[in-house]
């Protein structure tokens, strides 16, 4: 199969411009192309016609917050190269075609050792595309540490220099989650934004005002809405208030990650977020290493984890130790919880994350000219196959 092969997918409903329409999809050289140019200018027919048996074709899912899975923890991994490869490959079975491996608060030597090894890379049969690293911490508020180890949490006392000293390199970084109430946060946000890095606010005690200054300084994202931030209060709605802030929403969309695993965010909370700010909603798994493992007890690093009824628990307790729902499951749960349209649920895991990262010209849609990363789904949104650059990389 040469890459310049012209493929015409027929008998399918494709998701384009927020609607599912009966339409053919044309692919060549790993990109989605305009059939009019082919038919009327080049005057050629497709080399291959693929009958999709009436299935849905949607853009591949993009997970911008994932800590690991399939027994691999990106922040605690002896062989990051093989671990990353294993996750990238396994993600194909949940419809994820691109992702941002996420590193939680860690000691400096982990950053120094691991960050240079997680390179942005094009996906394929070997696994999903690595868009860049999501650094979640250590510049967060210790009072909203969640599962982050408190002893490595830091301040931004020396501004951008604190970041450079901690991370060593920003070369492969796409997103940084930080708490906007930290001293010097706004100048750091401006600097990161100018470097093309997406800044997300989270693990924070920030007031709405702190959040608004961060957005004005260039932050565009909120990390796992409702989790690890002040609960909504009507006199100071905190970061949650950014979803309805007049000061920020006028000229730009604030995006927010949200975990719809059915456990970490209550369905009513999902509905609230969906109804007040649908354009900014980005589904994330925030999955931990136990995602993709079978029910039972597993030893991951130093931690003993028990998977019971779709929940990952610290073995022998009822303490949740992270999300383990795959992205295709999150999409289904979100659809059931909110009663949104199928189109919206799919775009919340594809178009919206691409917009949040500013890569909508190449990922997250089925528009002409973008990368041919897409998934086949049945009418219940169960995954049938996954395609990267126009090639089938996973089939159920």
């Amino acid at each position, binding site marked *: 199969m040469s890459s310049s092969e012209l493929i015409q997918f027929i008998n399918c409903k494709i998701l384009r411009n927020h609607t599912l329409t009966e339409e053919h999809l044309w692919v060549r050289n790993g990109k989605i192309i305009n059939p009019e140019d082919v*038919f009327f200018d080049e005057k050629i027919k497709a080399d291959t016609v693929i009958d999709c048996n009436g299935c849905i074709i949607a853009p591949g899912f993009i997970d911008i917050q994932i800590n690991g899975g399939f027994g691999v923890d990106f922040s605690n991994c002896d062989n990051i190269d093989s671990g990353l490869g294993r996750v990238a490959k396994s993600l194909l079975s949940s419809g994820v075609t691109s992702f941002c491996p996420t590193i939680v608060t860690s000691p400096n030597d982990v950053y120094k050792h691991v960050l240079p090894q997680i390179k942005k890379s094009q996906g394929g049969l070997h696994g999903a595309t690595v868009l860049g690293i999501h650094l979640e911490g250590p510049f967060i508020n210790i009072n909203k540490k969640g599962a982050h180890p408190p002893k490595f949490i830091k301040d931004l006392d020396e501004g951008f220099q604190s970041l450079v000293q901690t991370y060593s390199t920003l070369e492969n970084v796409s997103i940084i989650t930080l708490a906007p109430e930290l001293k010097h946060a706004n100048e750091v946000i401006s600097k990161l934004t100018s470097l093309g890095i997406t800044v997300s606010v989270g693990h924070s005690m920030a007031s709405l005002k702190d959040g608004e200054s961060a957005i004005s300084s260039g932050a565009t994202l909120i990390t796992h809405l409702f989790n690890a931030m002040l609960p909504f209060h009507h006199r100071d709605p905190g970061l949650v208030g950014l979803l309805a802030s007049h000061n920020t929403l006028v000229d730009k969309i604030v995006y927010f990650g949200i975990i719809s695993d059915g456990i970490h965010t209550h369905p009513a909370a999902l509905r609230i977020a969906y109804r007040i700010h649908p354009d900014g909603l980005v589904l994330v798994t925030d999955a931990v290493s136990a995602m993709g493992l079978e029910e039972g007890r597993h030893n991951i690093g130093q931690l003993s984890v028990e998977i019971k009824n779709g929940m990952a628990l610290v073995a022998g307790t009822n303490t949740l130790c992270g999300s383990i729902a795959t992205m295709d499951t999150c999409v289904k749960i979100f659809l059931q919880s909110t009663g949104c349209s199928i189109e919206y649920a799919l775009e919340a895991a594809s178009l919206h994350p691409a917009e949040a990262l500013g890569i909508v010209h190449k990922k997250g849609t089925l528009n002409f000219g973008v990368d041919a990363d897409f998934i086949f789904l049945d009418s219940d949104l169960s995954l049938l196959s996954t395609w990267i650059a126009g090639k089938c990389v996973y089939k159920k």
Partner: protein
Amino acid sequence: MRLVILESADSVAEWAAKYVMKRINDFQCGPDKYFVLGLPTGSTPYGMYQKLIEYHKAGRVSFKYVKTFNMDEYVNLPRDHPESYHYYMLHNFFKHIDIDPKNAHVLDGNAPDLVEECSNYEKEIARAGGIDLFVGGIGPDGHIAFNEPGSSLVSRTRVKTLAQDTLEANARFFGNDINKVPHQALTVGVGTVMDSKEVMILITGGHKAFALYKAIEEGVSHMWTVSAFQQHPHTLFICDEDATLELKVKTVKYFKALSAVHHKLIEDTTPINRSRSIH
């Protein structure tokens, strides 16, 4: 002239599709013998295309050795605009069938030299050996292709300025904003269609009843350009009941009495050139 009166717009679509299929299959086309088909756009022929796609998928007809020439196209409308006729033809017909893109001709309303584009189109039709069957629809003012009232009945392919009626009728396709409707179109001429060996005109709906009356019961007039086909040796008008509302009872009864003869045209058993001399 034949007038085939059918129950509904759906049966008009089906009859027309069966006729096109029959003509292609009777023709026994091959690499050295292409069947040349003239094609319209619009809501009336849409059903015919749907049926032809269905027959193609069922293996009953192939377009591998068919050349097509479309009647018209707007000037200066982007080709991928959903109202462009390129877009219509690709999405409603061409992409579903086995036609070779080299054989599907649509006038280019964005060509740098529109006059040259028109004269080349005529030459291309001539090179293909002329059109065997031209399928057309008509407007409520009796225009065929974009040959608006007053067009010469011997006109050839050219740039045509659209009449106010047409602009108003088409505004609904352009967000009800008449300023967005292209004011010019490229169109084959009445003479171009007259030169084809056979013409089949589809007319459905009460709003086209007066045009049908003008087309067949009154004299030839350039104010009702479709009336020119009264002088064509092989013209078929296919209409639904609603479109006959302005016709004389006598006319309707006469042609309805002929319906058994007309239905033979689309039966599989008799070749069309046998049935042709029986009216």
